[in-house]
């Protein structure tokens, strides 16, 4: 047993079985019993230890079993406005959050990121929730797809007392099982009155006297905790923390604070597992609020003001289609639940039980006393507000709520957090700054550009960002401006953001590329591939090729030719607008061109998975870096991370994994469509992430071997200088170049209705695009010029001298903002004490270990083929230490011959042994690699036209169709080519296949997930969740066990049909025949020999979307194969 196959050489004839350990399964070698005990037997033994089933039926209760409550709180229209105000509801909360959730049953979507102040800098009173940011998985742990892999997700919550875990008794099952954590008013009353066994509830008020301010809040919290502690001792098992009863004297304690105070105390008293905490609060109204309450220990939540607001909206006829309040509430709960699953999955957590109390948040802007007292264990690194400000915010909301309401004043506060509003929240990009910027660029007027940057930089009136609190020190001897490196050198450090062709129009995408190529900066393809016609230069010298080619989780259009036409290959681990999430391009946006570039079919929807399925851990990232570097040794490899706590340690891992560049992206996000809660609440500002990265890289002496880039609403020369001083060598811009090309921040990028022709594919709207490369170029030169002015004043001649000089930064003096004055930037401005020889910027190249790869021999042996297209043959022994075999050769082919490659079978290579990871990755057309033995993970990753064949050694004793020959995640992101595997594959076979043809004799879980094109034949058993999210291509399954339809396949997006059409029959027969010819497979021979009996056991997996675009009618019933019967028409089909 090992992480890889082939780590110990064992003679093939001595191998009895080969296998893999599946997730959640156990492999037990019992040396005492002298045998291997199967997972099935282990689980069976465990399940029969005690009569668990009986215990459960006798002791576990559900809400349905509880008696109907006598009285339920009704909604109160007369006081709803005051209570909404007391809990800080804004007009936007109703119109942009609650209404859409009620109408559509899902979270609302937005775009263009966020440019409003952090909660701790905002002038408006904020909910306590806004001082927290969600953490998310990147690199060291994969996020999950909560829709396509719903089978592993769960919102079930158990309420009651946990017993001694070192014992097992029927009482351990005495719990109340909730299907999800959101309680209606009726549900809550049932719980309040529960009396079953020792389930007993008490309601504890969470209010404080508004007039008493901080002291009142503190004593109310103490009182609440004391009462909770006492309630536990008195035998109560459900504590309901309730803020009902808000009136003109009493304000609600922020619900998260009340919860955290009680949770923390009970953990310290070691009694926390004896009770469940339930929140009855008017405050929670969006997904983030519920996620925080659960993350800090709540078992269930009753959001009564949100529910009443829905009833109120329904009553006033504000909901679409005269929706009743019951339906609205149901939709709202559904939307919250979906959002919760998404939030858990971002962190790679699949169940509510695991998420509860896991505190996977970072606080931004809360002071140390507050965190230590109530949120122990949560990181809060820049200090910030304490109880006094929280009390003040509650007072402000309370005061607004209970001021006399006049006729003219029947509204909520406007909000303005999602869209710019007069009197609303401040936005960096507002109508004034946008028009100033656009004018200055069009008129090439540096003076009016300076007016624009002054508005952004001088945020003394409107603090918005962490950098607005910083000051650039004077003190060094200035240098004359003409001694500072020229602007044309500085602009080479600039890149534009990763926006795919698909999210922005062809015109906008190419304008950015032309501009960046003209100035020697770099534009980025985004994750949608790139048209090969852009690879060569235009007649006028312009180059529409993007220097940076992105490699994202979906691998759209990531072919060998794409990889070799790049200066930089960027692995996108996360995206600022929605870190930890995948994406979706609906079928109606996939036109002919987009489909061609993404190797898909027009009209078929495209999904980006949340994780790269070939990166679950840091050594996997090292492997992908190695794969890409082999394919294109000249390109630098960059890894894009999003700022969060711990990003520095991940960046250190990335440096050790031999990336050449690490990009630390801010939380603010760009054009990407994303749920509003992700835009607002996931990820943190780049200042924090960049500073942490610089510090951790320095402490590890790794900074010298990796370049650091940052992005996230960089807008001015000052922003660039601050980023450089904090440690960045390169700078990315996305929003402002779009504004330069005409964007006016309508924030409708996800709707395809962009009126300036940027974020749209609509041919009419695209005609309105008026952006020119010169606009973008002017913008970048203006920025560079400003940078030069700063450098002259600071006495730096070269940007490199300035990188990491955090000692040149200081805190902006005299900040007397009621919230901001508590912010402490010393952790950001920390300079680890290190000797001078520890370099503060990149001074050396990574050693990628390419000298030792087998491909040098392959390339040497292929000289005649590469140069003269003459056929060559070679053979090599191979071991698991030989990784990524074939990729460098393929890169060489693509470089010389483009995506057409070489004629079929020009280069034939035989291997014998156990191949290392990524065998035949990115294999180009014209190469056939045949392996006798077995291979590790990622065989045929990104296959680009080549052919790979794997079969067990001739001497093997085992049946190939029952044994593993290739590892996990085979053919991930394959775009074309052929693969024949005589034996079983691991998990996630042919995920994101968009064109390859494969035959295999068995697959693990999640095979063909997100497949959009291509063909897969499985001649044996399948794992679970086959074809999840599959929208194109076809799979044929030989349903060996007859359980495919019922148990193996995810039927959400595919139909299952018999293989009857002559076209299908012939196709399957031809491929099985070819499989036999190439591998000598027994399974194939058996099927061919008994074709008439075997054929009816084949099932065709046909995605709905694919059918729709082909114009085929959907099948009503899923096909379950019958027992083999030699039907006359099948015989006919076969011979006809």
């Amino acid at each position: 047993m090992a992480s890889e196959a082939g780590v110990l050489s064992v003679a093939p004839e001595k191998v009895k079985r080969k296998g893999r350990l599946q997730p959640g399964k156990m492999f037990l070698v019992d040396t005492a019993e002298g045998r291997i005990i199967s997972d099935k037997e282990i689980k069976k033994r465990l399940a029969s230890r005690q009569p668990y089933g009986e215990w459960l039926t006798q002791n576990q209760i559900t809400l349905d079993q509880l008696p109907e409550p006598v009285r339920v709180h009704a909604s109160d229209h007369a006081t709803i406005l005051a209570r909404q105000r007391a809990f800080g509801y804004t007009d936007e909360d109703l119109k942009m959050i609650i209404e859409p959730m009620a109408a559509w049953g899902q979270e609302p979507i937005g775009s263009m990121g966020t440019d409003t102040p952090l909660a701790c800098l905002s002038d408006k009173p904020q909910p306590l929730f806004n001082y927290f940011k969600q953490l998310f998985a990147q690199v060291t742990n994969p996020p999950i797809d909560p829709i396509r892999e719903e089978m592993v997700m769960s919102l079930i919550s158990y309420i009651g007392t946990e017993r001694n875990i070192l014992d097992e008794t029927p009482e351990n099952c005495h719990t109340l099982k909730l299907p999800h954590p959101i309680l209606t008013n009726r549900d809550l009353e049932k719980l309040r009155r529960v009396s079953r066994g020792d389930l007993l509830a008490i309601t504890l008020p969470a209010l404080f006297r508004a007039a008493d301010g901080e002291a009142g809040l503190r004593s109310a919290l103490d009182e609440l905790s004391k009462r909770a502690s006492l309630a536990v001792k008195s035998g109560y098992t459900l504590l309901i923390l309730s803020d009902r009863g808000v009136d003109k004297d009493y304000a609600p304690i922020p619900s998260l604070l009340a919860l955290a105070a009680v949770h923390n105390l009970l953990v310290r008293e070691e009694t926390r597992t004896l009770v469940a905490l339930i929140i009855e609060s008017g405050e929670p109204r969006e997904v983030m609020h519920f996620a925080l309450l659960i993350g800090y220990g709540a078992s269930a939540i009753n959001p009564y003001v949100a529910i009443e607001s829905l009833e109120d909206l329904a009553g006033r006829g504000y909901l679409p289609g005269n929706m009743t309040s019951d339906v609205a509430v149901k939709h709202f709960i559904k939307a919250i639940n979906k959002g919760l699953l998404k939030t858990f999955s971002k962190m790679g957590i699949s169940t509510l039980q695991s998420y509860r109390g896991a505190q996977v948040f970072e606080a931004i802007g809360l002071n140390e006393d507050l965190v230590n007292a109530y949120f122990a264990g949560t990181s809060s690194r820049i200090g910030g507000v304490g109880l006094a400000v929280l009390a003040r915010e509650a007072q402000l909301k309370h005061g607004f709520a209970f001021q006399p309401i006049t006729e003219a004043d029947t509204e909520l506060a406007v909000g303005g957090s999602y869209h710019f509003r007069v009197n609303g929240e401040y936005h960096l990009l507002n109508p004034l700054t946008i028009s100033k910027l656009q004018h200055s660029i069009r008129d090439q007027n540096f003076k009016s550009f300076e007016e624009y940057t002054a508005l952004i930089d001088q945020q003394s009136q409107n603090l918005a960002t962490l950098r607005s609190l910083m000051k650039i020190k004077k003190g060094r001897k200035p240098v004359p401006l003409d001694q500072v490196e020229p602007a044309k050198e500085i602009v080479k450090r600039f890149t534009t953001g990763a926006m795919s062709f698909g999210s922005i129009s062809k015109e906008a995408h190419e304008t950015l590329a032309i501009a960046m190529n003209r100035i020697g900066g770099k534009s980025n393809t985004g994750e949608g591939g790139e048209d090969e016609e852009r690879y060569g230069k235009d007649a006028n010298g312009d180059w529409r090729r993007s220097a940076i080619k992105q490699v994202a989780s979906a691998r759209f259009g990531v072919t060998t030719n794409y990889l070799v036409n790049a200066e930089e290959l960027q692995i996108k681990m996360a995206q600022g607008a929605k870190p930890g999430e995948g994406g979706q391009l609906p079928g109606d946006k996939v036109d002919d061109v987009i489909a061609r570039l993404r190797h898909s079919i027009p009209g078929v929807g495209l999904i980006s998975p949340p994780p790269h399925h070939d990166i679950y851990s840091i050594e996997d990232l090292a492997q992908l870096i190695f794969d890409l570097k082999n394919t294109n040794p000249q390109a630098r490899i960059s890894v894009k991370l999003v700022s969060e706590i711990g990003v520095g340690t991940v960046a250190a891992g990335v440096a050790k994994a031999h990336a050449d560049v690490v990009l630390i992206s801010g939380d603010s996000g760009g054009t990407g469509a994303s749920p509003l809660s992700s835009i607002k609440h996931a990820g943190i500002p780049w200042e924090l992430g960049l500073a942490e990265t610089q510090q951790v890289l320095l402490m590890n002496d790794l900074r010298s071997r990796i370049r650091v880039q940052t992005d996230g609403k960089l807008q001015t020369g000052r922003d660039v200088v601050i980023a450089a001083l904090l440690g960045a060598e390169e700078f990315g811009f996305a929003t402002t170049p779009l504004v330069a090309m005409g964007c006016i921040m309508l924030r409708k990028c996800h709707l395809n209705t962009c009126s300036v022709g940027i974020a749209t594919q609509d041919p009419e709207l695209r005609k309105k695009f008026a952006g020119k490369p010169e606009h973008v170029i002017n913008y970048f030169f203006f920025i560079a010029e400003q940078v030069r002015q700063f450098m002259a004043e600071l006495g730096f001649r070269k940007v490199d001298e300035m990188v990491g000089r955090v000692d040149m930064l200081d805190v902006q003096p005299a900040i007397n903002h009621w919230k901001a004055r508590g912010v402490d930037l010393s952790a950001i401005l920390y300079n680890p004490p290190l000797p001078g020889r520890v370099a503060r910027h990149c001074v050396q190249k990574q050693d990628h270990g390419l000298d030792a790869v087998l491909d040098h021999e392959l390339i040497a042996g292929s000289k005649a083929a590469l140069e003269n297209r003459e056929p060559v043959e070679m053979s090599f022994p191979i071991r698991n230490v030989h990784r990524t075999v074939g990729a460098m050769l393929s890169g060489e082919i693509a470089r010389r011959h483009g995506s057409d490659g070489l004629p079929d079978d020009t280069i034939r290579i035989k291997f014998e042994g156990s191949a290392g990871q990524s065998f035949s990755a990115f294999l180009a057309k014209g190469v056939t690699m045949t392996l006798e033995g077995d291979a590790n993970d990622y065989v045929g990753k990104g296959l680009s036209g080549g052919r790979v064949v794997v079969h067990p050694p001739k001497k093997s004793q085992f049946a190939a169709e029952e044994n593993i020959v290739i590892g996990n995640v085979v053919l991930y992101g394959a775009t074309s080519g052929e693969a024949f595997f005589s034996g079983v594959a691991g998990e996630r076979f042919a995920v994101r296949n968009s064109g390859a043809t494969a035959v295999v004799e068995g697959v693990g879980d999640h095979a063909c997930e997100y497949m959009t094109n291509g063909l897969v034949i499985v001649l044996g058993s399948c794992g679970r969740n086959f074809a999840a999210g599959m929208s194109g291509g076809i799979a044929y399954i030989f349903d060996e066990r007859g359980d495919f339809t019922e148990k193996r396949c995810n039927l959400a997006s595919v139909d299952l049909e018999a293989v009857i059409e002559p076209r299908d029959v012939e196709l399957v027969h031809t491929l099985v025949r070819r499989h036999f010819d190439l591998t000598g497979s027994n399974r194939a021979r058996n099927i061919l020999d008994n074709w008439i009996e075997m054929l009816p056991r084949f099932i065709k997996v046909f995605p709905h979307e694919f059918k729709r675009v082909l114009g085929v009618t959907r099948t009503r019933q899923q096909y379950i194969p019958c027992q083999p019967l030699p039907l006359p028409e099948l015989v006919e089909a076969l011979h006809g």
Partner: protein
Amino acid sequence: MQHWKTTNGLPPAQGLYDPANEHDACGMGFIASIRGDKSHQIIEQGIQVLINLTHRGACGCDPETGDGAGVLIQIPHKFFVRECEALGITLPEPGEYAVGMTFLPVEQHPRLNCEGVFERIIREEGLTVLGWRDTPVNGDAIGRVARASQPYIQQIFVGRPSEMDEDAFERKLYIVRKLAEKEISESDIEDKEFFYIPSLSCRTIVYKGLLLAPQIANFYGDLSDPDAVSALCLVHQRFSTNTFPSWKLAHPYRYIAHNGEINTLKGNVAWMHARQSILESPLFGDDINKIFPVIDPHGSDSASFDNAVELLFQAGRSLPHVMAMLIPEAWAGNPHIKPETFVPADMLLPTTISW
């Protein structure tokens, strides 16, 4: 590279850095004789597996210093009898004594201090100290950075009282280790951060350190001795997100070697702490109070998980049962679950505390 005077060998939190964010990943594997036949070949093959997984590990600024590697084997009785004889220690029959692999301060005075505390606790808990053996190590086999932070490595031999059975002995050893860890970390002994017990058991022993896979057999001479035999060999090569030298964070731990990360760690540790007051086991009796805190607050996620495994195992659960409790198979909406072949979380719920 500086050797940090912290319990886990990582720098203290400073600036925006917090050691709590460190991650690791790795390559791992094991070789076992299904019938339980012990041989030296199994250890040799285990080490070969480790060497072939070297590319899954990483090295930092000193290319000769790895992120950590280690092996867990059964106690090679014949080998230790021979070695101890030379030291004048007479070992009883297998199972009647335990070997404690012990990392200690390099300086003599604090080292003796730690040894003294450890011995005292062993005696107080009713066990006997049979003697110490200097573990032969070859400092030339490892990197410069590893050498600079290398602890003094000793093996202690602990005797089992005749009235105690083997399981009770293992439980006592667990208690002894927890008490020693706690007392020394709270003491004011200089260099106390070196003190660490990779293993203390009458069944298994762990050899690990800040090594690259190919270095392990040269560094720990014991592993190359033909008399060193075992029926199993669990190996691990670490890839961490830092270059800070830490001998303790190498795997295997006492029960597990782990690849991956536990993202609910904060919650798991808090919940485990929160339930300490209701933990009860007839196997422990009042001794249960000696093992608190169950989770060592300075450990990594894998080390914390090992702590949880150890508690449940010592409280009388089989290892498969422990794993089913801590890592329940994802099941909601899974059509393959049939009660007779699978234990859904609901059924094991009384004791499922998933990590």
